[in-house]
C-alpha cells in the first residue's frame, strides 16, 4: 500500500515497516493476540457446552464416592471410597509398575547391550536379534501378547505350574511367598542396617588407608559378608524369626503369599523387555563411544581388565549413556499408561478411564492426569540438566 504514494510521507512509514525490531514486536503481539483470542473462545465454548450437556465443573467430584472396585491397590481401598482416593490408588499403581519396570529394564538392557559387544559371535547375534525383534513390534501388541497369549494360557489355579512349591503360575496371576516377621525379626533388620553402616565406614577407612599406605582392601567381599552374612548369623542366633507364608490353593484361588495379578505381570514384562531393547542400544553405543585406545592405554599401564572397565571405560561410557537412559525411563513411565489396554488399574486407567467415564468431567480429569505426567517429566529433565552440566567433559 505504500507503493502507491511516492510522496515524502512514505519514507518514515517504510522505515517503521522494515525495522526488524519493531517488526518482531509486531509479530509477537499478533501471535499473543491470537492465543488470547483462542483461549477466550475455548473457554466460552467450553462453558456453553458443559451447561448444555449438564456436566459439573470444578474439583468437587474428588470427594464423591467412586463406587467401583480396583483389582490392585497398595493402600486400603473399597468401593465406597472417594474419587480422590482412587486417584492416589492409580498414581501408586503407576509408580509401582514403573519402578519395577525401570529396575528390570535396566538389568536386561545392560545385559543385552554388553552381550551385543561380546567376542562370542553367537551371543552377540542373539542379542542383536532380541533388540531388532522387540524394537520393531508395537508395545501395545506386546502387552496384549503377554496378557492374552502367554499369561492367559496358563492353567487354572487348580493345575497351577509350581516352581519349587513356593511360586505358583496360574491364569489368576503369580503367587509368591510373603515374608512373615515374627518376634526378634527386628534384630535381623537391625543387623542388616548395621551391616550397611559398617560397610560405608569400612569404605572410608579403606580409602584413607589406601591413600596412606597404598594397601588395598577387598571391599566387595567384606560388604557381602557384612550386609548378607551378619543378618544371616543373627537370624540363626535368634532362631529364624523371619519365615515365609507360602501361597496355598483354597477352592478356586490361592490364599496366603502375595499374588501378582496377571495385568501387572503382563504390563511389567512387556514394559521392561521393550524398554530393555532400547537401553541395550544405548549401552552398546555408550561403550563403543569409548575409543579402543582408552582400553589399550589402560592395559599398557598394566591395569587389569576389570579395573580398566571400572575406572576407565564405565565412567566415560556413563556420560554418554545416562541422558538417553533417563529419557527411556521417562518413556517407560509414560508407556505404563497403556495399562488401560488390559485393565491394570494405573493412574490413567482408573482416573482418565473409569472416573472420566462416570463423571464426564473431561477437562479437569485430563488436565490433572496430564499434569502428573508433565511434572514427572519436568522434574526428571531438570535433574538431567543439572547432572549434565556437572559431568560435561572439560574441553578447550
Amino acid at each position, binding site marked *: 500500500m505504500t507503493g502507491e504514494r511516492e510522496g515524502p510521507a512514505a519514507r518514515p512509514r517504510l522505515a517503521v515497516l522494515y525495522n526488524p525490531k519493531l517488526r518482531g514486536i509486531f*509479530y509477537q503481539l499478533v501471535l499473543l493476540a491470537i492465543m488470547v483470542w483462542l483461549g477466550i473462545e475455548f473457554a466460552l465454548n*467450553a462453558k456453553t457446552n458443559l451447561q448444555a450437556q449438564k456436566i459439573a465443573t470444578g474439583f468437587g467430584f474428588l470427594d464423591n464416592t467412586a463406587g467401583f472396585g480396583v483389582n490392585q491397590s497398595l493402600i486400603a481401598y473399597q468401593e465406597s471410597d472417594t474419587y480422590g482416593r482412587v486417584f492416589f490408588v492409580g498414581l501408586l499403581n503407576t509408580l509401582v509398575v514403573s519402578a519395577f519396570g525401570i529396575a528390570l529394564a535396566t538389568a536386561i538392557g545392560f545385559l543385552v547391550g554388553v552381550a551385543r559387544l561380546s567376542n562370542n559371535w*553367537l551371543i552377540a547375534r*542373539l542379542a542383536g536379534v532380541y533388540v531388532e*525383534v522387540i524394537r520393531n513390534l508395537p508395545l501395545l501388541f506386546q502387552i496384549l501378547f503377554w496378557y*492374552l497369549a502367554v499369561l492367559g494360557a496358563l492353567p487354572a489355579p487348580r493345575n497351577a505350574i509350581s516352581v519349587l512349591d513356593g511360586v505358583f503360575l496360574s491364569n489368576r496371576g503369580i503367587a509368591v511367598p510373603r515374608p512373615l516377621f515374627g518376634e526378634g525379626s527386628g534384630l535381623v533388620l537391625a543387623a542388616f542396617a548395621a551391616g550397611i553402616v559398617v560397610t560405608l565406614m569400612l569404605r572410608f577407612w579403606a580409602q584413607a588407608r589406601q591413600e596412606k599406605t597404598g594397601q588395598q582392601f577387598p571391599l566387595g567381599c567384606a560388604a557381602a559378608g557384612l550386609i548378607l552374612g551378619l543378618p544371616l548369623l543373627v537370624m540363626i542366633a535368634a532362631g529364624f524369626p523371619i519365615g515365609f507364608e507360602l501361597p496355598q490353593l483354597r477352592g478356586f484361588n490361592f490364599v496366603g503369599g502375595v499374588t501378582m495379578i496377571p495385568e501387572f505381570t503382563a504390563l511389567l514384562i512387556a514394559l521392561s523387555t521393550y524398554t530393555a531393547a532400547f537401553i541395550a542400544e544405548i549401552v552398546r553405543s555408550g561403550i563403543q563411544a569409548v575409543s579402543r585406545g582408552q582400553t589399550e592405554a589402560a592395559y599398557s599401564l598394566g591395569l587389569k581388565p576389570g579395573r580398566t572397565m571400572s575406572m576407565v571405560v564405565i565412567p566415560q561410557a556413563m556420560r554418554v549413556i545416562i541422558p538417553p537412559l533417563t529419557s527411556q525411563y521417562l518413556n517407560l513411565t*509414560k508407556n505404563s499408561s497403556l495399562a488401560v489396554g488390559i485393565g491394570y488399574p494405573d493412574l490413567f486407567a482408573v482416573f482418565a478411564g473409569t472416573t472420566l467415564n462416570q463423571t464426564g468431567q*473431561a477437562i479437569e480429569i485430563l488436565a490433572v492426569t496430564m499434569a502428573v*505426567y508433565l511434572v514427572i517429566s519436568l522434574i526428571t529433565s531438570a535433574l538431567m540438566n543439572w547432572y549434565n552440566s556437572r559431568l560435561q567433559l572439560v574441553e578447550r
Partner: protein
Amino acid sequence: MTGTTQTAYVAPAITAPLPPPIAVGGPVGWVRGNLLNSWSNAIVTIVSLYLIWAVAVPLINFLIIDAVWDGAGRADCLPEKVGHSVGACWPFIGAKFSQLVYGFYPWNLHWRVDLTFALGAVLLVPLMIPRAPLKMLNSILFFGVFPIVAFFLLVGGSFGLEHVETRSWGGLLVTLVVAVTGIVVSLPLGILLALGRRSHMPAVQGMCVIFIEFWRGVPLITVLFFATYMLPLFLPNTWTIDALLRVLVGVALFSAAYMAEVVRGGLQAIPRGQFEAASALGLGYWKTMGLIVLPQALRLVIPGIVNNFIGLFKDTTLVLIVSIFDFLGQMRAAFADPNWSTPVTLYTGFAFCGIVYFVFCFSMSRYSLFVERRLNTSHR
C-alpha cells in the same frame, strides 16, 4: 654396538606371505576364535545354541510344519480333525484378511482403498531412492497433492464417489491413514516449531518451547483422550467432528512436537557460516531458511524422520483404546468370532500381526540406517 647390530635378523629377500597356521584361519579357526576362545565362552555358546533350538524349533513347527493351510471354519483347525497337534490356523487369517486390511469399508468400494495405496506407493518409492530425480516435485506431490487426492478417494461424497463413513474404516487402512497423516502434517508443523524455538523473539520462542515440551511430556494415550473427549468441548457445539479426525488432530500435534526436536537437531548441525554467507548475499530470514538452511538440515534428519515414522506407526495401535479399530484392533475383534474359536486362533492372530508389524518397521529401520550411512560417507 657392532655386536648388537649382528643380532637383528634382516630378511635376505622379500618372502611370500604364508597362510596362517590352521588354528587361525579357516572355519576351524573361526569357530575357535569366535565361539570357543575360553571356557566361559564355550559355555555361553552352548547355552545360546540351546536357546536358539528351544525357540526356533517350536516356532517353525507352529508357523509351517504343523500349520493348517486351508479350511473353511474352526473345525478344520481342531486337533481332532487334523489328527496331530495344530500349529497356526492360516485359514483364519484368510477369512479375516479383508477385515484386517479394510475394516468394514464397503466391499464394492475396496478399489478406492487399493488405488490410494498404489498411488502412495508409486509416489513414495522414488522419494525413498536417493538417486531418483525430481525430488522437489516428488515431495510436493507426496506431501501436498497425495493427501488431498487420498482424502477425496477414501471419504468420497464428491466427484460422483459414494460417501464412506470413517466409522466403517478399519484395519491396515486406519493404521496407514493415521501414521501417514501424522507424518505429513507434523513435518511442516514441526519445521515451524523448530524454527520458532530457535527464534530470537521471546514470545515466539517461549510459546514453541511450551508447546513442544508439553506434548513430549505426556503419554500419547492422554493426547488421544484429550482429542476425543476434551477437544469437542472447546469447539462451538455446532461443529461435529468425526472421531477419526479428532484422533488425527491429536496424533498430528503430538508428533509435531517430536518432529520439531528432530528438525532442531538438523538445524543445529548447520554451521553458522551458512547463515552468515546467506545474509551476506542479502537473503532475508525466510529465504535464508527456505533456500539455504532447511534443504541441508532436512537432508541430515531424514533418518530421524523415518525413525519418527516408525514410532508413529507403532503408536497407531493406541487408537484401539479410543475405539477406532486399526490393524491390531481388528485382529483383536476377530479373536472374538465364534466361527473361528479354536485353541490356536489367538496365536495365529498374534503371529500374523507380529510378522506384518515387524516387516513394516524393520524394513523402515533398515532404510533409515541406509540413509544414515550414505549421509555419513557423503559428508566426509
